[in-house]
């Protein structure tokens, strides 16, 4: 393996630092994309040094905007000639450091590629450029009487390309699945600049390997997604939202198990603990019960009769498992308000402490109640302030450590707590990340979860598709480490 030696400027603070050939590269990029689409000044590029992840920061060398696949291809070819790493970026809301630049990188930002090209009502598909905002995709489908279910908390600003690259989930994951379940086709630019289509509008298609799915969740390490072909569903005729309040966390967890055991699959089954409830209420003012230990936000959708029936059963189950109150959203507007409030949970928690670091562990649903108790024990053990919310129905928890990155002693305890949470998750047959991706944040834990053989297979795939190791290098895993030397 011959890897390019990447520039070494860990803090990104060395402003004079420039890799060899850098001025020629910038000149060529400017020539190809036009001066407006190549940013190099400090004020312009500093705000691309981070994404939504706490405490990760690295200034890039330049930021470029592409308008179509041909330009993306040109950028990748130039980067290859100059051996410059390329970090693809959507809206930079990622929570595992995926679009945080590596030293000396060109950030390839796709937000200008935001066209929605086609809503095909006959085939129930939508085709859009990778930079299109998730919310707009939902709205366009909605306007045609159709439905694009994946709804990450960040959907008002995240790009569909970012969603595909992270295989994002959302509030409707329990019934409708995640982004992967809606990707029918992708246009991808490979490391050598070639442009290929993977997948088609056909519901069934087994021509060749299923490489489309390889790119879903690839975190910008295998290629640059430039277009997506999405599957749409008919819009559910009715929906009902319930808000159940609990005085004990266990009661909420047991309620969830009982709903699933009763063979009911609501579209949404979200959970917030007390700290999260209070922060969200401070921001959104939607009347959440501040004194509750936990709340469940539950939504059922589908045929009107089925919705009425399901809502009744769910309400009964909540009450019989100790819900202190169950509130029904009186209108569609109130339901949207409650869901929007829930989507703000992560950011709202930042009200309590300066630094908000969130986990994304997921366990089989039967392990949920135990996992939550374990997180509480870990918080006490390390004397940390941890709030928890998450997609309960999916077994996906977001324990969020509220801390201060400038307090080095406390940050050490945070490290230990994370290690404990990961160990507990893996012991329960869980995964270190349910929807935010590995990126930089989860990289140290990946091999432990996958085991040597699977881990090495991942790296083999990476080497085949990106032999120079220029696409988002150092994310998910390092290519340079050897199996033996790695602990």
């Amino acid at each position, binding site marked *: 393996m011959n890897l390019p030696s990447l520039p070494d400027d860990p803090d990104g603070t060395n402003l004079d630092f420039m890799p060899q050939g850098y001025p020629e590269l910038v000149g060529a990029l400017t020539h190809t994309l036009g001066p407006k689409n190549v940013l190099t000044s*400090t004020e312009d590029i*500093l*705000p691309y040094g981070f994404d939504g992840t706490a405490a990760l920061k690295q200034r890039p060398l330049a930021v470029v905007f592409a308008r179509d696949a041909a330009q993306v291809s040109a950028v990748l070819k130039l980067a290859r000639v100059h051996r410059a790493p390329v970090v693809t970026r959507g809206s930079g*809301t990622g929570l595992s450091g995926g679009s945080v630049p590596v030293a000396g990188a060109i950030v390839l930002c796709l937000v200008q590629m935001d066209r929605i090209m086609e809503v095909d009502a006959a085939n129930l598909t939508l085709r859009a450029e990778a930079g299109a905002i998730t919310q707009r995709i939902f709205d366009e489908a909605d306007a045609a009487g159709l439905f694009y279910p994946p709804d990450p908390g*960040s959907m008002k600003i995240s790009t569909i390309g970012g969603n595909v690259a992270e295989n994002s989930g959302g509030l409707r994951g329990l019934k409708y699945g995640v982004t992967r379940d809606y990707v029918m086709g992708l246009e991808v630019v490979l490391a050598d600049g070639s442009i290929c289509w993977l997948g088609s509008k056909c519901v069934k298609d087994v021509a060749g390997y299923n490489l489309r799915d390889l790119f879903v969740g690839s975190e910008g390490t295998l290629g640059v997604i430039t277009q997506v072909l999405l599957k749409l569903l008919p819009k559910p005729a009715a929906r009902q939202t319930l808000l159940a309040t609990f005085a004990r966390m266990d009661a909420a967890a047991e309620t969830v198990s009982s709903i699933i055991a009763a063979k009911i699959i609501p579209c949404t089954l979200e959970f917030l603990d007390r700290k999260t409830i209070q922060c969200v209420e401070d921001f959104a003012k939607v009347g959440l019960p501040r004194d509750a230990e936990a709340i469940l936000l539950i939504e059922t959708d589908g045929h009107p009769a089925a919705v009425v029936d399901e809502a009744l059963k769910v309400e009964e189950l909540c009450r019989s498992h100790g819900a202190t109150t169950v509130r029904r959203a009186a209108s569609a507007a109130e339901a949207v308000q409650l869901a929007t409030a829930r989507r703000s949970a992560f950011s709202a928690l930042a009200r309590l402490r300066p630094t908000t670091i969130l986990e994304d562990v997921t366990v089989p649903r039967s392990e949920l109640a135990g996992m939550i108790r374990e997180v509480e024990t870990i918080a006490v053990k390390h004397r940390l302030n941890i709030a928890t919310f998450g997609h309960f129905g999916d077994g996906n928890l977001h324990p969020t450590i509220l801390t201060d990155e400038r307090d080095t002693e406390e940050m050490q305890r945070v490290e230990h707590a994370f290690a404990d949470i990961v160990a507990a998750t893996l012991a329960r047959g869980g995964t270190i990340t349910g929807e935010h991706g590995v990126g930089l944040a989860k990289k140290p834990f990946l091999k432990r979860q996958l085991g040597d053989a699977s881990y090495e297979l991942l790296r083999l795939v990476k080497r085949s598709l990106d032999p120079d190791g220029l696409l988002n290098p150092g994310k998910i895993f390092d290519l340079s480490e050897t199996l033996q030397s790695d602990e």
Partner: protein
Amino acid sequence: MNNSTTTNAPGDMGGSALNATPVSVRETPVSGLAALDYSILQQCMHCGMCLPTCPTYIETKEERHSPRGRISLMRAIADGEIEATKAFGEEMYYCLGCLACTSACPAGVNYAQLFETARSEVEAKGLLDSPKRDAIRWFALRLIFTRPRLLRFVGRLLWLWQVTGAQYAFRKLRLTRLLPADLRRLEPQAPVVQAKFSHQLIAPVERPAQAATKPRRVAVLTGCVQDLIFADINRATVDVLLANGCEVHTPPLQPCCGSLHAHNGDTETAEALARRQIDLIDPFAFDAIISNAGGCGSHLRHYDHILEGDDRYAARAAEWSRKLKDISEYLVEIGFRRPEASAVPAASVDVTYHESCHLCHGQKVSRQPREVLNAVPGVKLHECGEATMCCGSAGIYSITQPETAGWLQQRKLGHLRATGASVVATANPGCHLQIANGFKQAGEATSVVHPIILLADAYRAERAKA
């Protein structure tokens, strides 16, 4: 932290008929991002939830022009990682200060304070200084908008210019070609000054016709721009308060509230003006202090914060901020009387409501103006798209950044037109002018009013009938 000795301001801003205490300023202004409480900067966890509401990000899709991008630059300066440069200064003036980001931000980032601190750093360091800019700033911030009498005098000249036909003749003779380019562009946008200013329309104290045993005592702030070109709105404000049993105090000569200064990096003058305002109106003597201009109210509400380090004023400033209310907010709070439906013409009027940034984002008053509008018999309220997005007026932004301001104005007009309304209600003079100018230039008859005008009209119609 603010126990430094005080001196008279350079160019003494007293000297008005107010005979207020001499204007005092800090000797060494504690300004700058580095001196700011770091937790305010740290509060931003760069989640990006504010991006879709920020007009300059929507326009450019560049992070530098987004709230979190700007905050990251401020933080880098506070950290000493980068220098505050001219480019940074320009960025701070490209920001509209519309505060849409604060409504969108779940983390509760105090962008208003960051923005004002950053702009004051830009000014203290002279990052954007040029002779022309300095002269304009001195003229506007230090001269005109600190002296209410002078402002009225300038207003009177402008009025003469407009009513005597001089403006018309000047344009007819195409003498406007002699003006420098930016003045030529602005000249037709100059607001029409009203024949009478607030003090000619409102007595210092007015009592309700049927006084309750103990009427509510309120003070009305007349504003500076509002005073000259929208004195009728001030009159209407007094009328609706009287109609709701309030005893209304309106000091005839009021200083500027200082918002223009704070938003343009002149913290010193802003503080001095806050003191003078409090000297003039003792907050402990009133049940409420009423503002009817979104932009002023948003600033007036923060006197507590502006004067928190000033021992002599802190307590009064805190009381002031507690009592400061927007007119619609106060009416709803006291359960204002809905005019009789029968007293009003049968024909209904289609109205839409544009939210002033500093009323909805700055003061979080959003529901109440709609309640006022819905109480007016015959008004049919139609919601418009993007009601809370800036119209591009943003203080003097339409003068400093005409391109972005024009783009926002057209975007706004599009949403207003789509409602089919013939009347646009809005509660801030800047928005009022920006939208009215837009319709005028497009040759459309849509009119713009303050919600309070409609309510006052309804009360008047009621009285006429009785």
